[in-house]
């Protein structure tokens, strides 16, 4: 899921072709049963705090003499190309991190090592369900969950209080009512936005569609076909528009939350709510430190009072490339990382740990608490290798939202067109 962001912004290009590759598996001499070894670990920029990785790498090297961990932090821009080529090289990294929506594509093509037999060794009983689904292909597991996160409604406690809202809304109706109260209370501020909601925040849309009982695609035999034209999905899209209209958000209708970054907008102090990930609040606080004491979060409300809407569970998996020359070392590295010690650190860093059900360390602050509360209701996009293509460019869901929100298309037409495009992508 995050690969997309990197891709979208990174200067990128087209990769194409190959003549006679891969067969020249010249062993470059990295293997060998004894002597010093290097374990190459490849994590994404910003995924795990450096305090965690430093400690982890040190502990691993201490307990494995003669092994050096070559820890490479990968930047997001151009990562698709880099993954494709690195997995094709003679010396792929030994441990890699993959976005969860990206994983099926790599798992289904035999590029990753089958870890089904090792699951028990890797805390398999406590794997986070949503992520586990994403790395399972034909009943085999090609990785293990690393961490996940999901969206909550991040809000300004001071503005809520000033508007006379005593408790965070727990249903869609209460949410809309709160928006009205906030608008009335801040009518004097021309820059005020009760809720910042850009037109293409499609992960948020997923919540609404799921909450209405719909889905973006459904399984039809061994293929997925779009189901955006169902009444439930349409109701979800419609609620999105209702929120945009009611809140009078000034966010562009034709971009997602990254352009401009909604955390920067929230950081201006004129926004009462945004639907975002914990790190987005972190970014806003960095821009405007005053916000730290004035913010909290609540789960995205549901149409049913007292419940919270299902949320998209975004995150990363860890995997061992099929061509790794240090499989055993890589496995013991993953074993160490999947242990409670490091999982707790992931929780403390504000993400849902991938291989531990204990989220106590996460719930130590209000945002983490909302996160932990809603992650139980986390869902993922259809587990098909084709899904990566939906996110890797020209996402029909985004076009659908823009077309409907700007009035360019009717609800039926927008959902119908998007459904056709989605079915084509999932089928092709």
């Amino acid at each position, binding site marked *: 899921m995050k690969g997309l962001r990197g891709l*979208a*912004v*990174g*200067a*990128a*290009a*087209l*990769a*194409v*072709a*190959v*003549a*006679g*590759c*891969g*067969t020249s*598996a010249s062993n470059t001499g990295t293997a060998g049963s004894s002597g010093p070894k290097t374990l190459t670990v490849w994590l994404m920029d910003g995924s795990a705090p450096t305090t965690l990785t430093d400690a982890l790498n040190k502990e691993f090297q201490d307990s494995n003499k003669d092994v050096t961990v070559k820890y490479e932090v990968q930047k997001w821009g151009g990562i*698709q*190309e880099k993954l*494709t080529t690195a*997995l*094709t090289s003679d010396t792929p990294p030994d441990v890699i991190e993959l976005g969860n929506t990206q994983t099926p*594509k*790599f798992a*289904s*093509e*035999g*590029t990753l090592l089958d870890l089904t037999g090792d699951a028990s060794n890797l805390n398999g009983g406590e794997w986070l369900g949503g992520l586990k689904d994403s790395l399972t292909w034909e009943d085999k597991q090609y990785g293990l969950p690393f961490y996940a996160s999901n969206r909550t409604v991040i809000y300004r406690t001071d503005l809520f209080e000033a508007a006379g809202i005593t408790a965070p809304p727990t249903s869609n109706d209460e949410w809309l009512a709160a928006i009205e109260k906030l608008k009335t209370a801040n009518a004097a501020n021309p820059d005020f936005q009760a809720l910042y909601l850009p037109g293409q925040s499609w992960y948020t849309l997923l919540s609404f569609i799921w909450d209405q009982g719909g889905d973006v695609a459904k399984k039809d035999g061994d293929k997925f076909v779009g189901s955006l034209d169902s009444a439930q999905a349409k109701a979800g899209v419609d609620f999105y528009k209702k929120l945009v209209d009611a809140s009078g958000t*000034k*966010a*562009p*209708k*034709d*971009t997602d939350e990254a*352009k*401009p970054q909604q955390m920067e907008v929230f950081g201006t102090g004129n926004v009462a709510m945004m639907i975002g990930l914990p790190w987005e609040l972190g970014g806003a606080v960095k821009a405007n430190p005053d916000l730290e004491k004035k913010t909290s979060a609540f789960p995205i409300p549901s149409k049913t009072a007292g419940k919270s809407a299902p949320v998209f569970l975004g995150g990363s998996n860890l995997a061992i490339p*099929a*061509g790794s020359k240090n499989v055993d070392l890589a496995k013991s590295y993953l074993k160490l990382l999947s242990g409670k010690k490091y999982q707790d650190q992931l929780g403390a860093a504000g993400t849902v740990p991938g291989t531990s059900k204990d989220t106590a360390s996460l719930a130590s602050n209000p945002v983490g608490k909302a996160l932990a509360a809603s992650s139980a209701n986390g869902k993922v996009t259809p587990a098909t290798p*084709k899904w*990566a*293509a939906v996110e*890797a*460019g*020209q*996402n029909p869901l*985004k*076009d659908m939202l*823009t*077309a409907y929100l*700007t009035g*360019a298309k009717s609800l039926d037409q927008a959902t119908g*067109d998007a459904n056709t495009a989605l079915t084509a*992508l999932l089928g*092709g």
Partner: protein
Amino acid sequence: MTAVETTDAAVPVRTSSPAPRRAVAGGARRRRGSTFDRLLPYLLLAPAVIGILWLIGFPVVSVVVTSFRKLDLGELVRGQVVWVGLDNYAKVLSDPRFWEITLRTVVFTAVVVATSVVVGLVIALLMRQLSTPVRILLQVCMLLAWAMPIIASTTVYQWIFDQQYGILNKILVKLGFDYAGHSWFSTGTATLSVIGLLIVWQAIPFLAFSLYAGVIGVPADLYEAAGIDGATAWQTFRAVTWPELKPLLMMVTFLSLLWDFKVFTQIWVFKEGGPSGGSTTLPVLQYLEGISQSHFGVAAAVSVLMVVILTLLTVSYLRKLLQTQEGKL
């Protein structure tokens, strides 16, 4: 950079000398005529030709070969070879969108190239009329544009055209137009217009500098003669500047065509070829097939078709160039 094309322009300018001087050169060589002399040109060309054939030719051939294979991620990683004949081409060519995209790409390229060459020429001509400080100011500003990293310029353009916070809408509102919250990217054409502006902005400095060098390479006595004949500015341009500049103009137009046809980064970063695919060009299609969907064989077919189309667009120029070369020999 200025001088890059000067001499190219200057070549025809100095037509008085080439013919005899070449004859002399050839004659001199023939007199010596040793094996070494006969081999010398090939020796001098060898490193360049080897470099090009090895580093460009070989990958190009593999792209062509790949276009006849099924090559998805799995085949790539396993090093598996699956031949599918013309399937990839059939798939691409049978998609009605392909023709729409091709047409869009050609029109977009034509508009961008024409605009940047014409404006570049006008600026080059303008520069001759300027006082020195203003000319240097203009040159420095164009250098700034040229030196700006693409990632920065693309981002800055997106901000300038931002619906809500963009300075452009703010300025228009200040000037009394109703552009508050105006979206510059509501259709594919609108999106391509903004991207086209960015590309023109990036391309003009090279063009203006090259053409300026050509303009001041025009012998002054030709202008003096025109002045004596009492020609108007337009007549002078038609009679003196234009014929002198034409070969250079054709050359830079040709190069711009090659470059602008292949533009990808800017288009992708703005809207990924959207909204609803409305700004998708051939390089974007290639990316969608290749990297996004990992159909490298299909993407290779798209690249081959791209080169074919590019060749069709430029074939008349290449032919003309060959003839001139022949004439020069």
